[in-house]
């Protein structure tokens, strides 16, 4: 996995919330709160290089409402896609069952998708995706890494090729520009000790 050349950035959303906006409040609610948290995360990401992989950790967040999910998850994905040269990949972790509804709803509404760790070591694709994208992503998730020689076997037909390109374009998987190998994002994130 050395060709992936990522040093994942771990961002604790609960800590960002406390530090940024509301030291007295523990919930990620209201749109201004979500906006402030997103901007703090984006500021943190401005200092990284041309490519980054961020682990956005919701473990310490008890409540997240739809407004905050839209600001912190959906708009973060949108902003970084529109951000020009910087190539940002995200994995959202600590996405517990009570968070999922809100996050899935805002992603669906904006036709976005993301990789989320729903339990330690268990990753899922959340949001808008086609059945073929889902199938390919899960296959990649099982394998962890696919070499260029194994690609035909993975993608199957033209539909599979388009789905793979879509996953890569939407930054739901990573293709190494040096080796051409395709990595599942889950294998590229490391939790801090």
């Amino acid at each position: 996995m050395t060709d992936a050349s990522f040093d994942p950035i771990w961002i604790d959303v609960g800590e960002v919330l406390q530090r940024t906006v509301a030291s007295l409040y523990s919930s990620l609610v209201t749109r201004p709160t979500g906006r402030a948290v997103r901007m703090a995360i984006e500021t943190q990401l401005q200092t990284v290089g041309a490519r980054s992989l961020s682990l956005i950790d919701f473990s310490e967040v008890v409540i997240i409402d739809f407004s905050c999910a839209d600001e912190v998850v959906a708009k973060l994905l949108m902003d970084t896609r529109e951000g020009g040269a910087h190539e940002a990949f995200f994995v959202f972790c600590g996405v517990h069952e009570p968070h999922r509804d809100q996050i899935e709803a805002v992603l669906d509404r904006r036709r976005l998708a993301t990789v989320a760790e729903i339990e330690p070591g268990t990753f899922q694709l959340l949001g808008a995706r086609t059945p073929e994208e889902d199938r390919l992503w899960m296959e990649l998730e099982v394998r962890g890494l696919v070499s260029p020689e194994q690609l035909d076997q993975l993608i199957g037909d033209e539909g599979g090729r388009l789905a793979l390109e879509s996953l890569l374009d939407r930054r739901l998987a990573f293709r190494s520009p040096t080796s051409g190998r395709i990595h599942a994002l889950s294998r590229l994130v490391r939790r801090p000790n």
Partner: protein
Amino acid sequence: MNVLPVPASLDQHTVDAFLDQVWLTKDERTLFDARHLRWVDPNGMVGLLVAGTVAARKQGAMPRLEPPESTDVIGYLSRMGFFEAAGGIFELEDPGKRAKPRSSDVLLEITPVASNVDVHEVVDRVQTRAGAILTSKLGYPATAVVQFSVILSEVCQNIIEHAEAPGWVAAQAYNWAKRLGRDVVVISVMDVGRGFRGSLSDEHSARYGDRWGDSTALEAAFLHGLTRFPDSGRGQGIQQIRRQVRRWDGAITIRSGTARIGQVPEWDDTPPLVEGLQPFPGAQISIVLPARAPE
């Protein structure tokens, strides 16, 4: 002086008629006569506050509130924080004596909502109390407290983002033994702002032409998720509240101006759309969440 009798029972079934009466009062100071009030729920309490606010605005004079004779009702209003909230709205006879310490049996006292800080307070406050009520009284899973808090957050933000005027929220659990044979939680959120039609008019009235009015504005927001914001991510709060309320087999209705729209389950005979009400300002939202039906 107008004398307006407050009905003996003031809840989600009677509050519309009461607010209509307030709107129809003459341009003189109003005395709200609540002496015969025997039963009041969050819709009734918050309804009294918006009624007093609108009467003051309309008549240019602070209305007077004659409190209930029933000591039980007085005690309940005190525990719900009614007299604290009413202090700046009504002329009250010695309201200080009525402001008793808050009690732990209340799910959410009447809380003013004027800024996002208030929404944080509401969410933090209910988290400590709602868990036990939702699980023990309604039979909901332990994680339901999150969805319940999200509902409150979104519905309160509706006031801040669309009303451009202050509002109030309150919630309490009841045993609807006769009406439903189950416990329920009743949530009321009301404001005296510009209402759904006022909020949406600039962006959406043209496409409706002559049909534009309170009921079409409510349908646009409630059924289709329209909002005055061009951002496609906006307007989902009410849609998601509806979805969660449906999952819990609950009822949600919203009055704004002359219409009230609702999503009602089989156990509730409230019509899904009521028109022809008086043009009362703002928006008045009622949510009823019933206990899970026995298997």
